[in-house]
């Protein structure tokens, strides 16, 4: 029990310390984490089902400007173990994940607020032309400082979480669980809307509507959608005059 909680704490640390770009963006996804959680708790089947369910909810969790809209890694590291141990269904896992993901954002805000201090020390190192010192501030120190911020919450949630959740679930009225499930289903909207804002071209809204209703009416697969998307982009840019205007 304590060993499993320690392992999940470590897993959450690895998933969120952000070493190596690309890897760090995918290891924090519930689907990836589910495999390791499945190994830790010896129940791959349940872990994968929970991970895949959470993944669909967090598919749009894109982090523009580094601001994560919700912490899908903490949600996975708490909700999947609890679901496995408490033998509850994916709907309950979603209901647990939604508020936990929101709490996880606070951890990231704490981290990025603290790291402002590192930049100020780096200013001094730069004045001294201490390149090595800057590299330590960019890598080693943040990795060390972030350890308690990541490890402790995930460890505690796993150590005390199952009992707490089990007694909690008995007391919570049904509409709350149902409401959190509804929220889990709407949550992807935030990620998609955010991406639309980053793309920043309001006159491209018709492409959004088109993509939406192509799927809504036909139910075509995601690969099919990508084919259409790239062809449309090629056609659109082909008929664009090659101007140097900057827009958006």
């Amino acid at each position, binding site marked *: 029990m304590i060993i499993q909680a320690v392992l999940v704490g470590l897993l959450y640390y690895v998933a969120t310390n*952000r*070493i*190596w*770009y*690309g*890897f760090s963006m*995918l*290891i924090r*996804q519930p*689907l*990836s984490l589910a*495999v390791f959680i499945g190994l830790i708790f010896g129940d791959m089947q349940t872990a994968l089902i929970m991970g895949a369910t959470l*993944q669909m909810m967090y*598919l*749009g969790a894109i982090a523009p*400007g*580094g601001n994560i*809209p919700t912490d899908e890694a903490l949600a996975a590291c708490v909700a999947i173990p609890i679901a496995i141990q408490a033998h509850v269904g994916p709907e309950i896992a979603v209901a647990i994940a939604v508020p936990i993901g*929101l709490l996880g*954002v*606070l951890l990231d805000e704490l*981290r*990025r*607020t603290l790291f*402002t201090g590192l930049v100020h020390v*780096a200013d001094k*190192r730069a*004045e*001294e032309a201490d*390149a090595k010192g800057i*590299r330590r501030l*960019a*890598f080693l120190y943040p*990795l060390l400082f972030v350890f308690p911020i990541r490890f402790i919450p995930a460890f505690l949630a796993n150590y005390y979480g199952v009992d707490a959740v089990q007694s909690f679930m008995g007391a919570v009225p049904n509409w709350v669980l149902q*409401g959190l499930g*509804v929220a889990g*289903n*709407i949550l992807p*909207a*935030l990620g*998609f*809307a955010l991406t639309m804002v*980053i*793309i920043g071209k*309001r006159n491209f809204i018709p492409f*959004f*509507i088109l*993509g*939406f*209703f192509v799927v*809504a009416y036909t139910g075509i697969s*995601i*690969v099919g959608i990508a084919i259409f*998307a790239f062809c*449309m*982009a*090629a056609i659109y840019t082909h008929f664009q005059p090659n101007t*140097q205007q*900057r827009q*958006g």
Partner: protein
Amino acid sequence: MNQKVVNLEPEKLTKGDITKSWIRWFAYSEVSNSYERLQALAFCGAMSGILEKLYKNKEDLALALQRHLTMYNTQCNWGSVINGISIALEEKAASHTEEDDEEVNEEVITGIKTGLMGPIAGIGDTIDYGTLRPILMGIFIPFALAGSAIAALLPLIIQTVFTAVMGYTLYHKGYTVGKKSIIDILQSGKIQQVITGAGVVGMFMMGALSASYVKLTTPMTITTSVKVLEIQSVIDKIAPKLLPLVAVLGVYLYLIKVGPNYVKIVGFLILISLAGSAIGIF
């Protein structure tokens, strides 16, 4: 700045130096992310080895390190091209001689960095996380649901390899392009075309993903003396999935009109869902 002693000449940069700088960039990029200057520390750290080789004079090195500690933020995979260009520009600045026609100074370097970081972040997020990641997830989630742990890990593996290959290539490409003339590239309209194309792909994908993954229906009914009318089936007769469409466009409008306060938005969504469930709308 031009008073150089012979042994203070910049060292020649090798391909290995660029690769080493890329490895540092990929390793550091988000580790030290802070609210004040975001990826500045990571960018400076990735550039530091290069700068040590270029600026043998302590004051020059200090100045170079300081100029790369200014606020920086982009998407790190596609943003690799900016690092490559910056290295080339620093190399030009360090070896600047009187007969050079194009002078590279601090303003040029910072200007190009900050000018490129926004649009490239837009392309990168759209392609990597708005398109590639959902495609991979869409392909492998069904296999994971059927119990395949390998399938659950494949998005991680594929995207890690993809970003590494892309990032490495763009880093070196940025360097070679920047050595010639970055200004030509910026004015050729090619970049604009890529941004436009990525915008089309992104918007279309967001629409498709919204229809696939945002789910919202209502169990509400209107009971008349003749029959029970289900609101949802009335809505479906107009067009499918209208409620999810309203949800996404609603959040979009909020983001544009009010601003990106994520915690507030998620909080709102949860509250609305809870309230809706309590009174039987959802």
